[in-house]
């Protein structure tokens, strides 16, 4: 299920609640509970990827491997095709006495182009899936959130989540061991 981007949602007074945690352990268990409570429009924010957090959040597997495989195959096929066309069809030359179609000699460039396209798929596919660059986001309104890229861990629950309630959700998050819960404005 693809979550609509924040910008596509109807304007609301607030973006949602931001809960702050001290350790990865607390965050991990908190995420499990948020997942089990049935929230869908939420996220965790950490300065580094935390082992096992994907499972704790109930995320589906990333489609990156397929993207990369397809791109790599395209690149390799394209590279081989280009060389075949040039050397066997378009401008055949007899080089060092060998036949026009010499597949061993086509291998290096085929391989390199497969890797190149695979890598481009990985990088730009990843940015596309992450909807980056997105230079601005409501969470940047929070000053505490600056520490998400340093040494603290956060859970954010968006106000557009069907289960969101400013009071109940706040109490729920405080019950999970959050050091601090902040209501973040949306604009």
């Amino acid at each position, binding site marked *: 299920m693809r979550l609509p981007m924040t910008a596509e949602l109807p304007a609301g007074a607030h973006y949602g609640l931001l809960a702050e945690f001290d350790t990865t352990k607390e965050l991990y268990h908190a995420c499990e509970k948020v997942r089990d409570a049935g929230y869908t429009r939420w996220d965790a924010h950490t300065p580094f990827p935390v*082992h*096992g957090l994907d*499972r704790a959040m109930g995320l589906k597997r990333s489609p990156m*491997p397929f993207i990369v*495989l397809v791109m790599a195959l395209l690149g390799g096929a394209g590279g081989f095709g280009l060389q075949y066309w040039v050397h066997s069809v378009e401008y055949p030359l007899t080089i*060092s*006495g*060998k036949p026009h179609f010499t597949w*061993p*000699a086509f*291998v290096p460039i085929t391989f390199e182009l497969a890797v190149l396209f695979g890598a481009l798929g990985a990088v730009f596919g990843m940015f596309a899936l992450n909807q980056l660059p997105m230079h601005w986001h409501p969470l940047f309104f929070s000053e505490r959130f600056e520490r998400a890229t340093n040494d603290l861990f956060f859970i954010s629950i968006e106000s557009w989540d069907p289960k969101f309630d400013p009071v109940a959700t706040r109490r729920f998050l405080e019950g999970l061991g959050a050091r601090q819960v902040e209501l973040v404005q949306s604009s």
Partner: protein
Amino acid sequence: MSHQAPRTLTAESVMLPEGHRLRRLPMLGAAATIVGIGLLTVFGAAHPAKVYAAWLVAFLFFLSLALGALYFVLIHYAVQAGWSVVLRRLGENLASTLPVFALLFVPVLLGMGDLFPWARPEAAGDHLMQWKAPFLNRNFFLLRAAIYLVVWSALALGYARASRAQDATGDVGISKRLRRFAGPAILILAITQTFAAIDWVMSLSPRWYSTVFGVYFFAGCYVSWFALLALLATALRRGPLKDVITVEHLHDVGRLVFAFVCFWAYIAFSQYFLIWYGNLPEETFWYHLRLQGRWQALSAFLAVGHFVIPFFFLMGRTVKRRGPWLTIGAIWVLTVHFLDITWLVLPSIGQGYFSSAILAGAVLAVGGIVTMVFGRRLAGRPLVPIRDPRLAESLALDNA
């Protein structure tokens, strides 16, 4: 998952239980040996040269597995690997069969004249053979073979014994000593294995040479060992090692099979490609032999079967984590490795040296003996080094 108190295992819990299918290995091995020798006698009595050729193929195939196992054990110690502790004993057990190869080498010695052109009397009149005679002569060949087998046996038994001793004492000093010696040991193994490949395979075509040949043989050793390890690990998961060898270990072994399939392909292609491109007749004839007649189909099959198929098959995460799928992949890799050894050996010896019955006989005979020794070792000691200092780390492996 990984945060209980560190687990320890008792010797009893990791011995191969009486009813386990792998307990039948010695018996199966004995039966295979008998059948194999029977086949060789029946079909090969009239063609001793074919017997020697087939024996060499079988010998090299099983030797490559044992050498791969020895490399695995040494590298495990040298890099202080943690994930593979639960699997190391299997490598030690197979490497411990290396002394038996001294016995198995005898038919190769008997067949030297049939197998190696430089060992024949005609070589005395050949200028190039005479040039190589200081190296390629019967006595030096024999001496080198003795050195290889003694060195390999010493390394394999030394490491297996020390590891077994650690089961009783838990002495960390043993691990430290084995680690310290592993570096030089790998060097010694690499050099002896390189020259064994040169002696026993490359010199079958004494006019030919390739500097990467030792590396090529190593690649085959290592990829086939990991395939075998995958089979053994899967088999042992149905039994005493159910919670000891986990899906994570299978996944890692599968990854290693994949990686070394790629490495093999890289080396094999490099060797072929450079010789093809340079187009020098003194080098290309070796490949010509393998691209003619009946060998052409095998060459084409190897290119696809030893690389393309296992590459795509073992790429996915799921295949490497499911026992049955990984088993299929492992059996495939072992089969193509066997075909690779056949392809290396038989075309050099000449046309008309191939007989499937004799080859089957040789494989059964050699494989039977190796299996007997391996099966006895497997059953006779704990399947896992129970007092290894890094055991807990290995048990807690998590690949998520």
